[in-house]
């Protein structure tokens, strides 16, 4: 049965680490950017209060789901996602976009690795 060990070890290695977290980093990047866009449009009076509130709530819930799913909770990108979650509901779009940009850099470096 020892011949099974190597493929199983390889499989285990593949299911952890930054590469495995790539979908969640990508989701978090998008969610931060969506939040920024919502806040930007809200500040211009283009959205209804109900839409703003429900969308912000959805963004937070999904960010929390992404954060919990990470296999490397102490990594730099995990801390970045936690930093997004700490932002207030009405955070400045520029701040949120800065978070999204940093997560995008992580995404790009993992994709090209």
């Amino acid at each position, binding site marked *: 049965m020892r011949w099974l060990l190597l493929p199983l070890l390889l499989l285990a290695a593949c299911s952890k680490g930054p590469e495995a977290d*790539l*979908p969640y980093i*990508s*989701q978090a*990047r*998008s*969610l931060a*950017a*969506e939040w*920024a*866009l*919502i806040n930007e*449009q809200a500040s*211009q*009076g*283009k*959205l*209804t209060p*109900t*839409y703003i*509130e*429900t*969308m912000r709530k*959805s*963004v937070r819930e*999904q960010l929390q789901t992404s954060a919990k799913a990470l296999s490397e909770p102490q990594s730099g990108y995990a801390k970045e996602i936690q930093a997004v979650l700490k932002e207030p509901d009405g955070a400045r779009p520029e701040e949120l*976009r800065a978070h*999204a*940009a940093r997560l*995008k850099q992580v995404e790009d470096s993992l*994709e*090209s690795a």
Partner: protein
Amino acid sequence: MNPLELTLGIMTAVGGFVDISELVFAAKAGSMFGYALIWAFVLGTIGMSVFGEMSGRVAAIAKQPVFNLMRHRLGLKLGLVTLIGSLISTLITCAAEVGGMALILNYLTGLPYPLLAVASVIVVSASMWVLPFKWIERTYGLLGLMMIVFAVAVVAIHPPWAKLIGGAVPQVPSGLSSKELLNYSYFIVAILSAVLFPYESYFYSSGGIEEGWGAKDLLTNRVTCTVGFGLGSLLAISILAASAQLFGPLNVGPEIPGTSALEAAIPFGRVGLMLALLGMLFAVAGAAVETCMSNAYAVSQFFGWEWGRHAKPWEAPRFTLAWIAVMLLALLIVLTGVDVMSLVEYAVLFSIIVLPLTYLPLMLLANDKSYMREHANKWLAKGLGWLFFVIVTCAAIAAIPLYLLTSGGSG
């Protein structure tokens, strides 16, 4: 051909074209790949027009819907495999539509999602109980025309028209990494699946029987499938194009279905937002009705039960119980808390796998002169039909590997 009936039929097809899967994948495709996947929508729409026209023609001439004749062609065993596969994929799609309705109502009202899911099922079921077939179809299709705000929004944001139109040509963007290429391939398969959902053929052909189509309605059938579906597809392409212009440069995925409504809010403010949300609501509600009835049609026709909403609910009792059961099962799936986006992913995955088994009997039937007489497929329908059959078969084979390799298009 009654011009008013034809116009209403086209408008219904336009308003009823987009469902939650097309909404999600159009927005994501635009953000990730710009205008480069417009051709996938064009290709899928041509395929849908080809198979839709065939299924309407079979209904009008053979006077039997696709599933009746499909069992006869495939036999009991293979027919059961097709039936079960189709029931599962359409049930998941129905659940995605019900979840989509609840989400959109949440954005409109702020009320809790589970409560809105229950309310959605009650209202949609009530409409299916009370209204005869024609008015079920027309109500949702015509109200779904509010989605036109997305097309108007695209014009208002002044996209690069040359690039947009260029996106209609099949292409592979240059400079994609191997991961991005896999994602691109996955999106092609997902878009084809979302446009060519099997339930659309079952619903369309059964609808033709419900409306008593005959040889005199063949032109109506052809015009609805080409003009109606074509214009409907423009709404999906509008969502893609606006996403390419507005979301892509800002790193927005989007991950939340409600974000698509911003495409109309950005140029038009609150009015645009409301029209977009209401249009999405009725389009998705219409799709919930279609998927639910499609499953009830499929099982009723397969076992030879009385079926149809041209009859009162008690005149086709097993059909009535079947659609009620489908709605309740869809609601149960939604109430388990599974994410709507995940349901959409599973729906497109299962549907593309079932598609070849759906379209093969339809092709064989539409070619068969003993059923279709002088209205059997001529060279163009035959050629296009077989071409698209090969395309959907290739897509079906590639679907699961691509889904696994790309984590559902996200990595």
